[in-house]
């Protein structure tokens, strides 16, 4: 009995890592696949996936439905683009600078946004999204105008390494960054899960218990801004071009809807949903040109009805179902009480 105890623990530890290793494994498999189409296409979805992580953080953890994360995303992207075009091509420098730029932008915007709730936030952040595109369009020295920038120099992982241009290394790099940033987000959110659930759910009571609600929300918003900034850097690294439309309402809406489909309380779910959404729009709809919006619409409608609570909730339900089925098959009967709670 005692000898067997540690085993499941180690297994549990391992199992905790599996979800995070899964995307990396998938990316490696994809990169190994001969077709050059898949690595490039999937790599290009990852910036939106990471942006969706950021949006899910603000929407889920802070309870502020936002379209405004494209602002830090744009800050990160243009910082990276301009750094690269000025000859600084180190990816770690890009990521750090973009995260800082994103956090700074989100911090500033957060001072206005986190004082509001619900629909007001949604509309204010809609204005933020629109104003982000407009600013990018108008600030031509940075953005290059409506046609944007192209041919941005590729980043280097480390000094002396070759530039990251080939599709397969880019995919592996982008997956690693996305997974790492998502895992970091999850870790932080998990650590403060209780606090965030509480302030989100009942502000008055939380304040009366000494919790500075707006400060918490501002911190989440700013942290999510760093993630969005990182996503912006990734956008430049995977695309090597950018137009103001890429940091506008459409992107914001896709990220928010992906967060809803993924389940707003689960950033990884949002990332998966973002890949799903772009997969439908760019891959599945490619064989039916002109009807990508139709398929996307159908996906949204289906997601609402078939996945209440999002992908994550569906997964949880599935797991509960499996556990239930297993429990009923188990030979020795459990005490009635604990069976009822499972």
């Amino acid at each position, binding site marked *: 009995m005692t000898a067997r105890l540690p085993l499941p623990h180690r297994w549990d530890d391992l199992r905790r890592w599996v979800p995070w290793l899964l995307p990396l494994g998938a990316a490696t498999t994809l990169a190994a696949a001969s077709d050059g189409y898949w690595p490039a296409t999937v790599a290009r979805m990852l910036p939106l996936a990471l942006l969706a992580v950021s949006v899910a953080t603000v929407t889920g953890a802070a309870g502020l439905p936002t379209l405004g994360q494209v602002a830090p995303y744009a800050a990160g992207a243009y910082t990276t683009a301009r750094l690269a075009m000025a000859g600084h091509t180190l990816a770690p420098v890009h990521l750090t600078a973009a995260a800082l730029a994103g956090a700074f932008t989100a911090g500033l915007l957060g001072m206005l946004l986190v004082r509001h709730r619900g629909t007001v936030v949604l509309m204010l952040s809609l204005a933020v999204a629109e104003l982000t595109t407009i600013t990018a369009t108008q600030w031509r020295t940075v953005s290059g105008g409506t046609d944007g920038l192209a041919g941005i120099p590729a980043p280097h992982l480390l000094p002396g390494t070759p530039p990251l241009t080939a599709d397969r290394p880019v995919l592996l790099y982008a997956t690693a960054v996305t997974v790492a940033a998502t895992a970091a987000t999850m870790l932080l959110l998990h650590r403060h899960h209780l606090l965030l659930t509480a302030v989100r759910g009942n502000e008055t009571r939380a304040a009366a218990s000494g919790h500075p609600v707006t400060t918490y929300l501002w911190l989440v918003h700013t942290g999510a801004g760093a993630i969005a900034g990182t996503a912006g850097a990734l956008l430049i690294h995977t695309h090597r071009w950018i137009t103001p439309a890429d940091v506008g309402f459409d992107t914001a809406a896709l990220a928010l809807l992906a967060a809803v489909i993924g389940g707003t309380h689960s950033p990884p779910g949002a990332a998966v949903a973002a890949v799903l959404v772009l997969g439908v729009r760019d891959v599945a709809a490619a064989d039916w040109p002109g009807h990508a919006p139709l398929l996307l619409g159908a996906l949204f409608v289906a997601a609402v009805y078939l996945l209440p609570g999002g992908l994550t909730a569906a997964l949880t339900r599935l797991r509960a179902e499996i556990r239930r089925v297993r429990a009923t098959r188990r030979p020795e009967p459990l005490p*009635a009480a*604990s069976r*009822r709670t499972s």
Partner: protein
Amino acid sequence: MLHVRDLTAGHRPDTPVVRSVSFHLPTPGVYAIVGANGAGKTTLLHTLAGHLRATTGQVHLGGRDLTGLLPHHLARAGVALAPQGRRLWPSLTVRDHLTVTRPATDDGFNVDDLFDLFPPLAARRRHHGHQLSGGEQQMLTIARALRTNPRLLLADEPTEGLSPRIAGQVIAVLRDLPDRGVTVLVALPQAHTATAVADRVYALNAGQLSDPPDGHVDLLVGDHRTPSNAHRSSHHARPPPARRALADHPRREHHQAGDRSPGNAPNPTNGTTMPPCLTTEANPR
């Protein structure tokens, strides 16, 4: 009037809160349900009003079968609920709360009657639901239910938060209602108020209704404080915190320090003990 047979209901299908409750209110009158906190009073009233689905059982009102009807059908059939927790409409004014309701017949309370009944409401008729004090909200909840001119009024702790004076008025109104042919079923937490208000008192205990001998309600509800779902506590095997002897209570230090003694002395027969975190003064920040 009201016939309830074998009613079982709850918030989740697997955990019934009200279990096989049957009772019969023969004539219009004021009937009270008493029970411990969490006994299921609110659940029972909500089930009767149609907001919760019963898993089994039948409900008849004045010979009509109301089993399984939707809340708005029940409301039209004359069932009104004055819920616990006020449940007002924040974007409607006090007046709107009363005028939006269309009673089936005109012989009930009209808006002015209700304002006469609750003068504080009359003074606040332009205020919105969320701008009222707790007691004013409670008054409006009752007034709204009365406005539908019900045949069965379900009042969930109607005097909660009311000043003794207004509470007395509300009770007087409830007592008058049977004369208009209204059956009143009121949930009350305290047995002594219930006996004062009602013609007959039922005790709800762990989801089951008993019909106590008049005047002995206390016996039934007095000392039960089990969560209504008995199974719940069974798997909570937390050890109760060790009881500390009252003699160790650090309050004495404060007496010695010259503080005035607080209002009442602790009841030495009761086991209530402050957790230590509260008995030593927290460090000022």
